Structure formats: structure tokens, C-alpha cells
């Protein structure tokens, strides 16, 4: 760590006017639409189609797509995407992931797709009827490392053949298109577009501890043939970093929901003749939630802003991710603890946030900024 790297711009924590606008719109959508329907979606293990469709009206799939390709991005938009992701997650992490799944693919296409691939797929993502799509990186084996996928891609006449399995695939059962990471034989890890109806690809529901509204599934690939154009460009590490950052945004939004929920709760709840918030044990827990949350947010913003500015951001993304995985989980656990027995039942959303926040430490893929 040498002296901090300098950039021409001033240190600034103020979003632009445009960013504020879309963030506020997303926050409103989260408060009015997502929060109320989260419990049911969690139980049903899937997001209501109408809700995802409504979220598309926010223009989520346009955020990472440049204007010339039909999107709204005038520059790299990691910060904007983080702000939107965070805002949606204040409503519900699982539903936010469901709403953002197709945007992960449109962003990946816009960033790393060939002209051919963009021409083939992007128009629908920037149109009125956004297809369901998913970015699949995680794998269902212990100690999986996104940089060493067990899924392999062999070169074959006219393209590649993929074999392996992917886990935590968002809305897997509904998706028409997957972007799948695989180890390219003779190369390194890479991303491939695979249409859902390709022969050899099967989807199984794979419900998990949390983010259940995202309808997580497992995708198995046996001898799956894809064309040359299925290979996305040379940006694997960047994709993993930007996906981890998106999970940071989800963690920040969810942790904010926890904080906003527990403050009135501990003020209202009376024990031994006083609000429980008058006890340091309770009050310090709330203080620590707020402190760690603010740090999670700042670290995430810093990494995203560096990505947008074209600065190296591997370090900053890793540090933000470490904070969001660890402190985010602690916030989820403390949220339940602050409510005591009431935190353990579904009447209150904190038990869901406990389950959701564990995802941040294990997930890669699904979302992207």
C-alpha cells in the first residue's frame, strides 16, 4: 500500500442527479412492491412473474447497456447499478436478485459479447418484453473456486462442447438464456452463452437457505454444443469482481433493512420497565450494525467508482466483498438476536434476512454491476 492513488476528481459521496433519481425510484419500488410480497415469494421459492415484469419497467436491463446498443449507459455504470441494487435489496434480497437476473446477462453481453452476439440477443433485453436469463458461475461442489470451474469447455467443430454443473442459478427454470462459466481447455476460465433449450442442458430446482424468491436452480450440462459466437470476450476476472460487487450491493441494502427494522423495535419493546434500547448490550449492537454497514457501503462504492473510472479494482472489490460477507452475516444474526424469540419466527422479516445474508459469502454470479 503506497500513498493512496490519486484521481483528478474530488473525493465525493454525492450521487449524481440521475443516480439519485433512479435510486429513489428503485427504493420506492422496493418499499411498495417487494417488501410485502417477499414472504410469500420466499415460501413459494420463486418470484411472481408480474412483479419481475413490473421491475423491468425500471429499465434495469438498460443500465449496463450503452446508448448505441439501445441502453441508457453513457459510461461504465457500476456505481449506478450498485445504487439500484442496494435500493432493491432494502425491499427484499431474493426478489431483488430475481429482478436483476436478466440485467446481469444484458450487462455481460454489452460488455463482453461479440458484435454478432449483441445483434442476436441484445434487442430483446432492451425491448419491452425482457427475456429471463441468468449468469451462472457458482458450482455445486465443496470449496468451489470461480477461477477454477470444474465445468469444462472443449473446442469442437463449429464451437465448443460444455460439460459440468452450475449451482445457485437464478430463475433457472424460467430462463431462456444462460451465461455460464467454464474452464476452456488450453485456456483459462471463460464465459459462454447457452440457450436453455440446447440439447444436453437440464435444470433442477435447487432451493437454498435464502434468496429463495430468486428461484435458484441447478443446471447440468452434458455434452452441450454451442457455436463459436457463444464465447464472451476476455474479461473473466472482471466479471467475477463485478458480480461479487453486486452481491455487496445486495448485502448493503439488506443490512440497511435490518437496521431500519430493529431501531423502532428495540425502542418500542419494553422489558424490566424500560425500552430495551436503554441497555448498552442492545444499544451497542445497534451502533455496531450501523458502523459496519456504513463501512460496507463505502467500501462497495469505492470499488465500483474505481471500476467506472477504469482504475484497477481487484483489491477494493475483494475487501468490500470480505466486509459484506462477514459483517453482513453478523448483522443478519444480530438482527434476529435483537428481536429474541420474535426474531426466530416468520412474523418478522429478520429471520429471512438472516438466511439471505449468508448468500453473500458463497454466491458468485446471478447479479452483476
Amino acid at each position: 500500500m503506497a500513498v493512496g492513488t490519486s484521481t483528478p476528481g474530488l473525493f465525493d459521496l454525492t450521487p449524481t442527479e440521475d443516480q439519485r433519481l433512479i435510486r429513489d425510484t428503485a427504493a420506492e419500488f422496493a418499499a411498495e412492491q417487494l417488501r410485502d410480497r417477499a414472504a410469500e415469494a420466499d415460501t413459494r421459492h420463486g418470484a411472481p412473474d408480474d412483479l419481475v415484469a413490473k421491475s423491468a419497467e425500471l429499465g434495469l436491463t438498460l443500465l449496463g447497456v450503452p446508448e448505441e446498443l439501445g441502453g441508457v449507459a453513457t459510461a461504465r455504470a457500476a456505481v449506478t447499478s450498485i445504487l439500484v441494487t442496494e435500493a432493491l435489496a432494502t425491499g427484499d434480497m431474493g426478489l431483488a436478485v430475481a429482478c436483476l437476473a436478466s440485467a446481469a446477462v444484458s450487462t455481460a453481453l454489452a460488455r463482453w459479447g461479440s458484435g454478432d452476439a449483441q445483434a442476436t440477443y441484445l434487442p430483446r433485453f432492451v425491448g419491452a418484453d425482457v427475456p429471463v436469463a441468468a449468469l451462472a458461475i457458482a458450482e455445486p461442489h465443496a470449496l468451489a473456486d470461480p477461477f477454477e470451474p470444474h465445468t469444462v469447455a472443449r473446442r469442437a467443430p463449429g464451437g465448443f462442447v460444455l460439460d459440468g454443473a452450475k449451482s445457485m442459478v437464478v430463475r433457472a427454470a424460467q430462463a431462456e438464456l444462460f451465461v455460464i462459466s467454464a474452464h476452456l481447455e488450453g485456456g483459462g476460465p471463460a464465459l459462454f452463452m447457452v440457450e436453455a433449450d440446447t440439447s444436453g442442458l437440464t435444470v433442477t430446482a435447487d432451493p437454498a437457505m435464502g434468496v429463495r424468491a430468486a428461484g435458484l436452480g441447478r443446471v447440468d450440462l452434458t455434452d452441450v454444443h454451442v457455436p463459436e459466437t457463444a464465447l464472451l470476450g476476455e474479461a473473466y476476472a472482471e466479471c467475477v469482481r463485478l458480480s461479487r460487487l453486486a452481491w455487496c450491493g445486495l448485502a448493503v441494502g439488506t443490512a440497511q433493512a435490518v437496521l431500519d427494522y430493529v431501531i423502532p423495535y428495540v425502542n418500542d419493546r419494553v422489558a424490566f420497565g424500560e425500552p430495551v434500547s436503554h441497555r448498552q448490550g442492545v444499544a451497542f449492537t445497534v451502533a455496531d450494525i450501523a458502523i459496519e454497514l456504513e463501512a460496507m457501503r463505502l467500501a462497495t462504492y469505492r470499488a465500483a467508482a474505481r471500476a467506472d473510472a477504469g482504475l484497477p479494482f481487484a483489491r477494493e472489490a475483494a475487501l468490500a466483498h470480505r466486509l459484506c460477507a462477514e459483517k453482513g452475516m453478523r448483522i443478519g444474526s444480530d438482527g434476529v438476536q435483537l428481536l429474541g424469540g420474535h426474531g426466530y419466527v416468520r412474523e418478522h422479516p429478520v429471520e429471512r434476512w438472516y438466511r439471505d445474508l449468508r448468500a453473500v459469502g458463497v454466491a458468485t454470479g446471478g447479479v452483476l454491476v
Partner: protein
Amino acid sequence: MINLEVPETLATVVSQAHRAAAEILRPGSRRNDRAEHTRPPELDVLGPLADHLSAFGPGGGPKPANKAENRNGSNLTSVLGIMEMCWGDAGLLLSLPRLGLGNAAIASVANEEQAKRFAGKWAAMAITEPDCGSDSAAIRTTAALDGDEYVLDGEKIFVTSGERADVVVVWATLDKSKGRAAIKSFVVEKGTPGFELVRLEHKLGIRASDTAHFRLENVRVPRENLLGDPEIDVRRGFAGVMQTFDNTRPLVAAMAVGVARAALDETRRLLTDAGLTIDYDRAGPRQPAAVAAFIALEADYEASYLLTLEAAWMADNARPNSLPASMAKAKAGRCATDITLRCIELVGSLGYSEDSLLEKWARDAKIMDIFEGTQQVQQLIVARRLLGKSSTELK
């Protein structure tokens, strides 16, 4: 002579419990987790086992003849058995017929007639109310003597096995103005008019166990159903009730230890299958991060395990164990949550999926840090004892 190993004399009981856990409890874990509010079919098989175990329950078994003699008795047996059973499934352990908290309360404070009358009944315990958590002095459910009956009115939540039990031990106050001393426990038979099941809770974990919410409206129970002394003795009235907690805290600590061990065993299996070696001697900065993390978690497990054994051993040897009981509960409660959550992270997305039981154990574990006195309540008890403070000084 200092020795912290499980003695040969208990090896059979422990291995029986482990076998039951592995063969009966564990196989149905996922099914019962998914089918919340459905009576687990295992309960029919487990009834006789539970009766066998209850002979070893805390407070049960012969007392030491000689104070100097070292005893490994029913308390140690109970915690060891519970660890194994919760290694199998904590939700099912909590559902074991006739091993409810209410049974523990009856065993602790019932007189001879009551013990006989309620023998063989499965007893749940109803303490918490919608507006009282840890603060049992704030209980609003009232019991008024009317002729030969007490009339109970109030509302009770978080009653474990409340639906399945035969009777519920209900805490109520004879006189709100007299504080804790006026709180007594009453045995209420299921089916008593006015004793209404409001709902069963949907929970984060331990879903095999039912958690009931009751309303009591003009519920009449015979005056002989008041457990213990009906007089309000301001000096010691609450002691009997608190005694129950001293006995049950090590049991909850043991539950937490069992769940934590389940997660560690599974994680160890997955790590070694993935090619890592847990080398205890070479524990150091060069070994893989997952191994170092695993050993750190296992150290917290060892701490929880030994504190739990200590608390039980002290009870077996008739030494005051309120302090070690709360220490064990505090440490085991928080560590079970940490350990199970971290195990998922070590393993990765596989551990987060319902394909693995790791995610379930992280949901089950959290209750261990909450019920029977939260982490904060245990810390208060420990701190007050160490610092010599009353509950009005250190609130």
C-alpha cells in the same frame, strides 16, 4: 484426578444415543424440516427411547452418597445423550415425548402426589407472553383462586411442543403487585375449556418441533395443579422456578454443542474429500485458509463442549452450578450459530443449498442462543455473580 474424557461407564448410553441419532433422527431431518407443522413420524418410534432417557434426566437418578466422592451421574449422562441426539436432529430432540421442559419443571418442583398424578404425561412449558421476553417478572397471565380451582387468564407464546404435549405447565401470577414471588406454575390439561391454540409458529429452524401460541380465557384448573408451594414467599418464591433453569441451561448448551458438531463433522468430510488435510500440529499461517478456519471453529466447539460437561458434572456433584450453567449456555449458544454459519461459507454454495444439511443446522442453531435465556441474559447472570451485583444494580 483431572480427566475430561467421557467415562467407560457412560460409553454405552452415548453410543446408543448416537446410533438412534444416526439411524432414526438424521435420515428424516430434511423431510421434517420441509414439512413444518406435520407430526414427524419418528416420534412414534422415539417415545420408548425418550422414556429410557428420561430416567437419566437432570435431577433424576440417585444423589451422591458422599460429598467427596466424584460422581458422573444423570446430568452428565443427559448432556452427553442430548449432544448425540442433536447431532442427529435438534428439532426432533425437542419434540421427544415426555422430555419437555414442562416435565423438567414437574420433576423439579412437583410434590409427591403431583409427580405421581402427572407421571407419563408429556408436559410443555408456557412462560413467555407477547409482551414479555426475558423479563419473566412482567408476566400478565393471572391465576385467581375460586373455590377449589384456579382461574387462569392470559396469553402464552413460544410454547415448545405445545400442540403435541398432553399438558402445559403455565406460568401465571397470583398477584401482579407482588412481583416474581407471586409467579407460580400450573398444570393445564389439553382440552380444558378456554385453553385455546391460537396458532403454530412458522420458524427459522427446528421446524420438526412445534411452537404454539395459546390463549387462556377463564381456564379453570384444580387447585392441586399448582406446582410447589402456593404461598407467596417474597424471599424465595422464585427460587424453585429458577432452579429449573439452572438444570435446563446445560441441556440447551448440549443441544447447541450437538448441532455444532454435526456441522463440523460434515464440513470436515467435505474438506478432506476436496483434498485438504486437517493437520493439528502444523496449524499455522502456511496451511490452507479453510483448515485454519476449521481448527479455529473446532476450538470454539471444544470450549462449548467442555463448559457444558463442567456444568453438568457440577450438578452431578451437588455443587452450585448456576455460573457454569450460564457460561456454558452463553458460549455454546453463540458458538453454535457462528460455527454453523461459517461452515456454510467454508464449503460454499453447496453448503447453502438444501441438498446439504449444513444450511439447516445454521437455522436450527440460532435458537440455541435465544431460548431458555438469550445470550444477553446469560451474560447478565455471569456478570452479576462475578461482580457481586443484584439485578437492580446491573440491569
